[in-house]
Protein backbone atom coordinates (compact mmCIF):
# COMPACT_ATOMS: atom_id res chain seq x y z
CA UNK A 1 0.00 0.00 0.00
CA UNK A 2 1.25 3.43 -0.90
CA UNK A 3 1.70 6.00 1.75
CA UNK A 4 -0.83 8.81 1.44
CA UNK A 5 -4.36 9.58 2.35
CA UNK A 6 -6.29 7.08 4.43
CA UNK A 7 -9.84 6.37 3.29
CA UNK A 8 -11.76 4.85 6.16
CA UNK A 9 -13.82 1.85 5.18
CA UNK A 10 -16.19 1.85 8.15
CA UNK A 11 -16.10 5.63 8.61
CA UNK A 12 -16.08 6.23 12.38
CA UNK A 13 -18.71 8.65 13.60
CA UNK A 14 -18.25 11.57 15.94
CA UNK A 15 -21.09 10.81 18.31
CA UNK A 16 -20.38 13.44 20.92
CA UNK A 17 -18.53 16.76 20.89
CA UNK A 18 -17.96 19.25 23.68
CA UNK A 19 -16.18 22.58 23.92
CA UNK A 20 -15.22 24.72 26.88
CA UNK A 21 -13.63 28.17 26.61
CA UNK A 22 -12.39 31.09 28.67
CA UNK A 23 -14.21 34.40 29.17
CA UNK A 24 -12.39 36.27 26.39
CA UNK A 25 -13.19 33.50 23.92
CA UNK A 26 -16.76 33.54 25.20
CA UNK A 27 -17.09 37.06 23.82
CA UNK A 28 -15.64 36.15 20.43
CA UNK A 29 -17.33 35.30 17.17
CA UNK A 30 -18.25 31.72 18.07
CA UNK A 31 -19.74 32.54 21.48
CA UNK A 32 -23.17 31.11 20.70
CA UNK A 33 -21.78 27.70 19.81
CA UNK A 34 -19.67 26.77 22.83
CA UNK A 35 -21.03 24.35 25.39
CA UNK A 36 -19.52 26.07 28.40
CA UNK A 37 -17.92 29.47 28.98
CA UNK A 38 -15.73 29.82 32.07
CA UNK A 39 -16.37 32.84 34.27
CA UNK A 40 -12.69 33.46 34.90
CA UNK A 41 -9.37 32.18 33.63
CA UNK A 42 -8.49 30.31 36.82
CA UNK A 43 -11.63 28.13 36.75
CA UNK A 44 -11.64 27.84 40.53
CA UNK A 45 -8.10 26.47 40.65
CA UNK A 46 -4.93 27.84 42.20
CA UNK A 47 -2.73 27.93 39.09
CA UNK A 48 -3.37 28.31 35.37
CA UNK A 49 -1.84 24.90 34.71
CA UNK A 50 -4.40 23.32 37.03
CA UNK A 51 -7.13 25.29 35.30
CA UNK A 52 -6.02 23.95 31.92
CA UNK A 53 -6.08 20.41 33.28
CA UNK A 54 -9.55 20.91 34.71
CA UNK A 55 -10.76 22.24 31.37
CA UNK A 56 -9.52 19.12 29.64
CA UNK A 57 -11.11 16.88 32.29
CA UNK A 58 -14.42 18.67 31.94
CA UNK A 59 -14.28 18.55 28.15
CA UNK A 60 -13.71 14.79 28.21
CA UNK A 61 -16.58 14.21 30.63
CA UNK A 62 -18.80 16.56 28.64
CA UNK A 63 -18.15 14.80 25.35
CA UNK A 64 -18.83 11.40 26.90
CA UNK A 65 -22.10 12.69 28.33
CA UNK A 66 -23.16 14.21 25.02
CA UNK A 67 -22.44 10.88 23.33
CA UNK A 68 -24.88 9.37 25.88
CA UNK A 69 -22.22 7.00 27.13
CA UNK A 70 -20.71 6.53 30.55
CA UNK A 71 -17.05 6.60 31.57
CA UNK A 72 -16.83 2.81 31.59
CA UNK A 73 -17.88 2.59 27.92
CA UNK A 74 -14.71 4.38 26.84
CA UNK A 75 -11.82 2.19 25.70
CA UNK A 76 -9.02 4.68 25.20
CA UNK A 77 -8.24 8.39 25.36
CA UNK A 78 -6.11 10.15 22.73
CA UNK A 79 -5.09 13.60 23.92
CA UNK A 80 -2.41 16.26 23.80
CA UNK A 81 -1.69 19.90 24.63
CA UNK A 82 1.01 22.56 24.41
CA UNK A 83 2.74 22.36 27.77
CA UNK A 84 6.08 20.64 28.23
CA UNK A 85 5.69 16.85 28.43
CA UNK A 86 1.99 17.38 27.62
CA UNK A 87 1.24 17.50 31.34
CA UNK A 88 -2.27 18.89 31.06
CA UNK A 89 -3.51 15.87 29.12
CA UNK A 90 -1.53 13.32 31.06
CA UNK A 91 -2.59 14.70 34.43
CA UNK A 92 -6.18 14.95 33.23
CA UNK A 93 -6.00 11.30 32.13
CA UNK A 94 -5.04 10.41 35.69
CA UNK A 95 -8.61 11.18 36.71
CA UNK A 96 -10.08 8.57 34.36
CA UNK A 97 -9.99 4.85 34.45
CA UNK A 98 -9.12 4.14 30.82
CA UNK A 99 -5.90 3.80 28.83
CA UNK A 100 -4.28 6.94 27.47
CA UNK A 101 -2.32 7.76 24.34
CA UNK A 102 -0.50 11.09 24.49
CA UNK A 103 0.00 12.79 21.13
CA UNK A 104 1.74 16.03 20.25
CA UNK A 105 1.36 18.05 17.09
CA UNK A 106 1.39 21.51 18.67
CA UNK A 107 -1.72 23.33 17.48
CA UNK A 108 -2.58 20.54 15.03
CA UNK A 109 -3.01 18.05 17.86
CA UNK A 110 -6.79 17.75 17.57
CA UNK A 111 -6.61 16.57 13.94
CA UNK A 112 -3.78 14.20 14.78
CA UNK A 113 -5.70 12.70 17.69
CA UNK A 114 -8.93 12.34 15.69
CA UNK A 115 -7.01 10.70 12.83
CA UNK A 116 -5.29 8.27 15.22
CA UNK A 117 -8.57 7.57 17.01
CA UNK A 118 -10.33 6.96 13.69
CA UNK A 119 -7.70 4.40 12.74
CA UNK A 120 -8.15 2.64 16.09
CA UNK A 121 -11.93 2.57 15.71
CA UNK A 122 -11.97 1.79 11.99
CA UNK A 123 -9.55 -1.06 12.51
CA UNK A 124 -11.96 -2.58 14.99
CA UNK A 125 -9.51 -2.53 17.86
CA UNK A 126 -11.49 -0.19 20.07
CA UNK A 127 -15.17 0.58 20.26
CA UNK A 128 -15.38 4.07 21.74
CA UNK A 129 -12.41 6.43 21.69
CA UNK A 130 -12.27 9.95 23.18
CA UNK A 131 -10.08 12.68 21.70
CA UNK A 132 -9.25 15.85 23.54
CA UNK A 133 -6.91 18.82 23.30
CA UNK A 134 -6.76 22.15 25.04
CA UNK A 135 -4.63 25.20 25.63
CA UNK A 136 -4.61 28.13 28.03
CA UNK A 137 -3.43 31.66 27.23
CA UNK A 138 -1.69 32.16 30.56
CA UNK A 139 0.21 28.86 30.61
CA UNK A 140 1.33 29.21 26.99
CA UNK A 141 2.45 32.81 27.49
CA UNK A 142 4.67 31.91 30.37
CA UNK A 143 6.13 28.87 28.68
CA UNK A 144 6.83 30.46 25.31
CA UNK A 145 6.94 34.19 25.93
CA UNK A 146 6.93 36.65 28.82
CA UNK A 147 5.24 36.96 32.22
CA UNK A 148 1.65 38.20 31.97
CA UNK A 149 2.21 41.41 33.90
CA UNK A 150 5.27 42.51 31.94
CA UNK A 151 4.56 45.82 30.24
CA UNK A 152 5.76 44.93 26.76
CA UNK A 153 4.09 45.45 23.42
CA UNK A 154 3.00 42.59 21.18
CA UNK A 155 4.33 42.70 17.63
CA UNK A 156 1.68 43.15 14.92
CA UNK A 157 2.13 39.59 13.62
CA UNK A 158 1.56 37.92 16.98
CA UNK A 159 -1.46 35.78 17.82
CA UNK A 160 -3.43 35.16 20.97
CA UNK A 161 -3.43 31.67 22.48
CA UNK A 162 -6.99 30.48 22.93
CA UNK A 163 -8.07 29.43 26.41
CA UNK A 164 -10.24 26.44 25.75
CA UNK A 165 -10.52 22.70 25.31
CA UNK A 166 -12.43 20.61 22.82
CA UNK A 167 -13.24 16.95 23.02
CA UNK A 168 -15.11 14.40 20.91
CA UNK A 169 -16.05 10.72 21.07
CA UNK A 170 -15.53 8.44 18.05
CA UNK A 171 -17.43 5.24 17.58
CA UNK A 172 -18.96 3.01 14.91
CA UNK A 173 -22.25 2.88 16.77
CA UNK A 174 -24.57 5.83 17.11
CA UNK A 175 -25.25 8.86 14.98
CA UNK A 176 -23.10 11.77 13.97
CA UNK A 177 -20.78 13.22 11.34
CA UNK A 178 -18.38 10.67 9.86
CA UNK A 179 -14.62 10.88 9.56
CA UNK A 180 -14.02 9.66 6.02
CA UNK A 181 -10.41 10.51 5.20
CA UNK A 182 -7.20 11.47 6.92
CA UNK A 183 -3.90 12.76 5.58
CA UNK A 184 -0.89 12.94 7.86
CA UNK A 185 1.48 15.77 7.10
CA UNK A 186 5.21 15.98 6.65
CA UNK A 187 7.30 18.29 8.81
CA UNK A 188 8.09 21.27 6.61
CA UNK A 189 10.58 24.00 7.46
CA UNK A 190 11.10 26.94 5.16
CA UNK A 191 13.50 28.75 7.43
CA UNK A 192 11.25 31.19 9.30
CA UNK A 193 12.97 32.15 12.56
CA UNK A 194 10.58 34.78 13.95
CA UNK A 195 8.77 33.07 16.85
CA UNK A 196 6.01 35.65 16.73
CA UNK A 197 5.26 34.94 13.11
CA UNK A 198 3.90 31.39 13.46
CA UNK A 199 1.53 31.79 10.52
CA UNK A 200 4.41 32.24 8.10
CA UNK A 201 6.24 29.25 9.60
CA UNK A 202 3.22 26.94 9.26
CA UNK A 203 1.76 28.03 5.92
CA UNK A 204 4.19 25.91 3.83
CA UNK A 205 3.24 22.81 5.87
CA UNK A 206 -0.44 23.51 5.24
CA UNK A 207 0.28 23.88 1.53
CA UNK A 208 2.17 20.60 1.42
CA UNK A 209 -0.55 18.63 3.20
CA UNK A 210 -3.31 20.26 1.18
CA UNK A 211 -1.61 19.48 -2.13
CA UNK A 212 -0.94 15.88 -1.22
CA UNK A 213 -4.48 15.50 0.10
CA UNK A 214 -6.01 16.77 -3.13
CA UNK A 215 -3.71 14.57 -5.17
CA UNK A 216 -4.25 11.39 -3.15
CA UNK A 217 -7.98 11.75 -2.70
CA UNK A 218 -8.55 13.05 -6.24
CA UNK A 219 -10.61 15.94 -4.93
CA UNK A 220 -10.50 19.68 -5.61
CA UNK A 221 -11.30 22.65 -3.33
CA UNK A 222 -14.80 22.78 -4.84
CA UNK A 223 -15.62 19.33 -3.44
CA UNK A 224 -15.71 20.76 0.09
CA UNK A 225 -18.23 23.05 1.71
CA UNK A 226 -15.54 24.27 4.03
CA UNK A 227 -11.76 24.01 4.01
CA UNK A 228 -10.54 25.22 7.36
CA UNK A 229 -7.05 25.61 8.79
CA UNK A 230 -6.41 25.90 12.51
CA UNK A 231 -4.38 28.88 13.54
CA UNK A 232 -2.51 30.31 10.59
CA UNK A 233 -4.08 33.60 11.59
CA UNK A 234 -4.83 36.55 9.42
CA UNK A 235 -1.39 36.73 7.90
CA UNK A 236 -0.70 33.01 7.59
CA UNK A 237 -3.98 32.24 5.87
CA UNK A 238 -3.29 34.93 3.28
CA UNK A 239 0.12 33.34 2.77
CA UNK A 240 -1.46 29.92 2.28
CA UNK A 241 -3.79 31.36 -0.38
CA UNK A 242 -0.76 32.88 -2.14
CA UNK A 243 1.28 29.67 -1.87
CA UNK A 244 -1.58 27.58 -3.23
CA UNK A 245 -2.09 29.99 -6.09
CA UNK A 246 1.57 29.59 -7.02
CA UNK A 247 0.90 25.86 -7.26
CA UNK A 248 -2.17 26.43 -9.42
CA UNK A 249 -4.86 25.71 -6.82
CA UNK A 250 -7.28 28.48 -6.03
CA UNK A 251 -8.76 28.61 -2.54
CA UNK A 252 -12.04 30.44 -2.74
CA UNK A 253 -14.74 31.61 -0.35
CA UNK A 254 -15.04 28.13 1.15
CA UNK A 255 -11.63 28.55 2.76
CA UNK A 256 -11.33 29.90 6.29
CA UNK A 257 -9.02 29.88 9.27
CA UNK A 258 -10.24 29.23 12.83
CA UNK A 259 -7.68 31.60 14.35
CA UNK A 260 -8.55 34.43 12.04
CA UNK A 261 -12.29 34.06 12.66
CA UNK A 262 -12.05 33.44 16.38
CA UNK A 263 -12.02 36.88 17.97
CA UNK A 264 -13.80 40.10 17.19
CA UNK A 265 -11.70 42.93 15.80
CA UNK A 266 -11.94 45.05 18.94
CA UNK A 267 -10.55 42.27 21.13
CA UNK A 268 -7.02 43.29 20.11
CA UNK A 269 -5.64 39.91 19.26
CA UNK A 270 -3.73 41.26 16.23
CA UNK A 271 -3.44 38.30 13.85
CA UNK A 272 -6.09 36.17 15.60
CA UNK A 273 -6.23 33.10 17.81
CA UNK A 274 -3.77 30.24 18.09
CA UNK A 275 -3.05 27.22 20.24
CA UNK A 276 -4.43 23.69 20.53
CA UNK A 277 -7.68 25.03 21.89
CA UNK A 278 -8.29 27.26 18.88
CA UNK A 279 -9.05 24.62 16.28
CA UNK A 280 -10.32 22.09 18.86
CA UNK A 281 -13.04 24.37 20.20
CA UNK A 282 -14.16 25.61 16.78
CA UNK A 283 -14.36 22.05 15.44
CA UNK A 284 -16.25 20.73 18.44
CA UNK A 285 -18.73 23.58 18.51
CA UNK A 286 -19.38 25.52 15.32
CA UNK A 287 -18.27 23.03 12.68
CA UNK A 288 -19.93 20.04 14.39
CA UNK A 289 -23.18 21.98 14.75
CA UNK A 290 -23.15 22.92 11.07
CA UNK A 291 -22.43 19.33 10.07
CA UNK A 292 -25.27 18.04 12.24
CA UNK A 293 -27.63 20.68 10.83
CA UNK A 294 -26.73 19.61 7.33
CA UNK A 295 -25.48 23.08 6.39
CA UNK A 296 -22.09 21.59 5.69
CA UNK A 297 -21.90 18.26 3.92
CA UNK A 298 -18.16 17.84 3.68
CA UNK A 299 -15.51 19.66 5.65
CA UNK A 300 -11.75 19.48 5.20
CA UNK A 301 -10.32 20.25 8.62
CA UNK A 302 -6.58 20.79 8.60
CA UNK A 303 -5.05 22.55 11.60
CA UNK A 304 -1.36 23.36 11.51
CA UNK A 305 1.21 23.16 14.28
CA UNK A 306 4.50 24.95 14.84
CA UNK A 307 6.84 22.37 16.33
CA UNK A 308 9.13 24.75 18.13
CA UNK A 309 10.45 24.94 21.66
CA UNK A 310 12.08 27.91 23.34
CA UNK A 311 15.34 25.96 23.65
CA UNK A 312 15.49 25.24 19.92
CA UNK A 313 14.69 28.79 18.87
CA UNK A 314 17.18 30.26 21.34
CA UNK A 315 19.82 28.08 19.73
CA UNK A 316 19.01 29.72 16.43
CA UNK A 317 16.89 26.95 14.90
CA UNK A 318 14.13 27.85 12.47
CA UNK A 319 10.53 26.81 13.09
CA UNK A 320 9.29 23.57 11.54
CA UNK A 321 5.58 23.22 10.85
CA UNK A 322 3.24 20.29 10.43
CA UNK A 323 -0.32 19.99 9.21
CA UNK A 324 -2.70 17.05 9.50
CA UNK A 325 -5.91 16.95 7.52
CA UNK A 326 -9.13 15.08 8.17
CA UNK A 327 -12.31 15.03 6.14
CA UNK A 328 -15.57 15.02 8.05
CA UNK A 329 -18.85 14.40 6.29
CA UNK A 330 -22.33 15.04 7.54
CA UNK A 331 -24.87 12.41 8.48
CA UNK A 332 -26.12 10.32 5.60
CA UNK A 333 -29.63 11.12 4.45
Amino acid sequence: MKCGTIKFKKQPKIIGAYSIVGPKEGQGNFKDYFDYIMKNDLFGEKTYEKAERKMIENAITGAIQKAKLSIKDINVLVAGDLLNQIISSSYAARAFNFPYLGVYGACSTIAESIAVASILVDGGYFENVVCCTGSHFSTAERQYRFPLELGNQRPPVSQWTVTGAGSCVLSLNGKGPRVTMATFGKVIDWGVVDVNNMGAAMAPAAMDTLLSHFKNSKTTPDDYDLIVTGDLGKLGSEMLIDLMEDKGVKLGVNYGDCGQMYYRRDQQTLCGGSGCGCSATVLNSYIMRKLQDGQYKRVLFMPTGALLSTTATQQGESIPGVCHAIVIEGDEG
Partner: protein
Amino acid sequence: MSEEERIKAYNKYVKAKIPKTRPFPTLFNSFWVGGLICLIGQGINDLLLYLVPNLSEQAAWSYTLIILIFIAAFLTGIGVYDKIGRFAGGGTIVPITGFSNSITSPSIEFKHEGIIYGICVKMFTIAGPIIVFGVVSSAFVGLIYYIIGLFM
Protein backbone atom coordinates in the same frame (compact mmCIF):
# COMPACT_ATOMS: atom_id res chain seq x y z
CA MET B 1 14.83 26.06 -7.40
CA SER B 2 17.25 24.73 -4.82
CA GLU B 3 16.25 24.36 -1.17
CA GLU B 4 18.37 27.34 -0.15
CA GLU B 5 16.96 29.63 -2.83
CA ARG B 6 13.42 28.67 -1.90
CA ILE B 7 14.01 29.47 1.76
CA LYS B 8 15.52 32.79 0.77
CA ALA B 9 12.68 33.63 -1.58
CA TYR B 10 10.05 32.63 0.99
CA ASN B 11 11.60 34.68 3.77
CA LYS B 12 11.78 37.66 1.44
CA TYR B 13 8.10 37.21 0.66
CA VAL B 14 7.24 36.91 4.36
CA LYS B 15 9.21 40.03 5.20
CA ALA B 16 7.38 42.03 2.57
CA LYS B 17 4.05 40.70 3.77
CA ILE B 18 4.20 41.42 7.50
CA PRO B 19 2.44 44.56 8.67
CA LYS B 20 4.80 47.25 9.90
CA THR B 21 4.44 48.99 13.23
CA ARG B 22 3.20 52.52 12.57
CA PRO B 23 6.07 54.73 13.77
CA PHE B 24 4.27 57.97 14.53
CA PRO B 25 1.59 56.91 17.06
CA THR B 26 3.95 54.38 18.67
CA LEU B 27 6.78 56.85 19.14
CA PHE B 28 4.44 59.65 20.16
CA ASN B 29 2.78 57.57 22.90
CA SER B 30 6.06 56.27 24.21
CA PHE B 31 7.46 59.83 24.18
CA TRP B 32 4.74 61.46 26.21
CA VAL B 33 4.20 58.62 28.69
CA GLY B 34 7.95 58.25 29.23
CA GLY B 35 8.22 62.01 29.66
CA LEU B 36 5.36 62.02 32.12
CA ILE B 37 7.07 59.35 34.25
CA CYS B 38 10.24 61.47 34.31
CA LEU B 39 8.18 64.52 35.20
CA ILE B 40 6.57 62.66 38.11
CA GLY B 41 10.04 61.59 39.24
CA GLN B 42 11.30 65.18 39.14
CA GLY B 43 8.17 66.28 41.01
CA ILE B 44 8.79 63.76 43.78
CA ASN B 45 12.42 64.85 43.98
CA ASP B 46 11.54 68.54 44.27
CA LEU B 47 8.82 67.83 46.79
CA LEU B 48 11.23 65.85 48.96
CA LEU B 49 13.78 68.68 48.92
CA TYR B 50 11.05 71.16 49.74
CA LEU B 51 9.54 69.14 52.60
CA VAL B 52 12.84 68.07 54.16
CA PRO B 53 15.14 71.11 53.84
CA ASN B 54 18.30 69.55 55.25
CA LEU B 55 18.13 66.48 52.97
CA SER B 56 21.14 66.18 50.68
CA GLU B 57 20.49 66.10 46.95
CA GLN B 58 22.09 62.67 46.70
CA ALA B 59 19.75 61.21 49.32
CA ALA B 60 16.73 62.82 47.67
CA TRP B 61 17.59 61.06 44.39
CA SER B 62 17.76 57.71 46.16
CA TYR B 63 14.40 58.26 47.85
CA THR B 64 12.85 59.32 44.53
CA LEU B 65 14.07 56.14 42.84
CA ILE B 66 12.75 54.00 45.69
CA ILE B 67 9.35 55.67 45.47
CA LEU B 68 9.19 55.24 41.67
CA ILE B 69 10.21 51.58 41.95
CA PHE B 70 7.54 51.04 44.58
CA ILE B 71 4.82 52.69 42.50
CA ALA B 72 5.70 50.57 39.44
CA ALA B 73 5.84 47.36 41.48
CA PHE B 74 2.49 48.20 43.04
CA LEU B 75 0.90 48.93 39.65
CA THR B 76 2.33 45.65 38.34
CA GLY B 77 0.84 43.79 41.29
CA ILE B 78 -2.64 45.13 40.70
CA GLY B 79 -2.36 44.40 36.98
CA VAL B 80 -2.26 47.96 35.63
CA TYR B 81 1.34 48.38 34.51
CA ASP B 82 1.12 45.89 31.63
CA LYS B 83 -1.82 47.83 30.23
CA ILE B 84 0.11 51.10 30.35
CA GLY B 85 3.09 49.26 28.84
CA ARG B 86 1.04 47.88 25.97
CA PHE B 87 0.03 51.44 25.17
CA ALA B 88 3.31 53.22 25.72
CA GLY B 89 5.93 50.62 24.76
CA GLY B 90 9.45 51.99 25.22
CA GLY B 91 8.12 54.91 27.25
CA THR B 92 7.45 52.61 30.19
CA ILE B 93 10.36 50.21 29.63
CA VAL B 94 13.25 52.69 29.61
CA PRO B 95 12.63 54.55 32.92
CA ILE B 96 13.42 52.77 36.18
CA THR B 97 9.73 51.85 36.49
CA GLY B 98 10.22 49.44 33.59
CA PHE B 99 13.07 47.79 35.44
CA SER B 100 10.86 47.41 38.48
CA ASN B 101 8.12 45.88 36.34
CA SER B 102 10.56 43.42 34.78
CA ILE B 103 11.53 42.14 38.25
CA THR B 104 8.06 42.14 39.76
CA SER B 105 6.17 40.49 36.90
CA PRO B 106 8.13 37.20 36.83
CA SER B 107 8.07 37.09 40.64
CA ILE B 108 4.28 37.19 40.58
CA GLU B 109 4.10 34.76 37.68
CA PHE B 110 6.27 32.07 39.24
CA LYS B 111 5.17 32.29 42.87
CA HIS B 112 3.43 28.90 42.59
CA GLU B 113 6.76 27.18 41.89
CA GLY B 114 7.89 28.08 45.41
CA ILE B 115 10.03 30.80 46.97
CA ILE B 116 13.44 29.42 45.97
CA TYR B 117 12.83 27.78 42.57
CA GLY B 118 9.99 30.07 41.63
CA ILE B 119 10.37 33.62 42.83
CA CYS B 120 14.12 33.78 43.52
CA VAL B 121 15.27 31.91 40.42
CA LYS B 122 12.84 33.46 37.94
CA MET B 123 12.97 37.00 39.32
CA PHE B 124 15.87 37.99 37.07
CA THR B 125 14.87 36.20 33.87
CA ILE B 126 14.18 39.53 32.17
CA ALA B 127 16.21 41.98 34.25
CA GLY B 128 19.24 39.65 34.53
CA PRO B 129 20.91 40.72 31.25
CA ILE B 130 20.34 44.40 32.14
CA ILE B 131 22.09 43.93 35.49
CA VAL B 132 24.98 42.00 33.92
CA PHE B 133 25.53 44.59 31.21
CA GLY B 134 25.20 47.40 33.74
CA VAL B 135 27.80 45.93 36.08
CA VAL B 136 30.23 44.89 33.34
CA SER B 137 30.06 48.18 31.48
CA SER B 138 30.46 50.25 34.65
CA ALA B 139 33.51 48.18 35.62
CA PHE B 140 34.89 48.78 32.14
CA VAL B 141 34.27 52.51 32.31
CA GLY B 142 35.85 52.57 35.78
CA LEU B 143 38.96 50.92 34.36
CA ILE B 144 39.22 53.52 31.59
CA TYR B 145 38.74 56.27 34.15
CA TYR B 146 41.55 54.83 36.29
CA ILE B 147 43.97 54.54 33.34
CA ILE B 148 43.26 58.11 32.23
CA GLY B 149 43.83 59.23 35.83
CA LEU B 150 47.35 57.76 35.77
CA PHE B 151 48.45 60.12 32.99
CA MET B 152 46.71 63.26 34.17
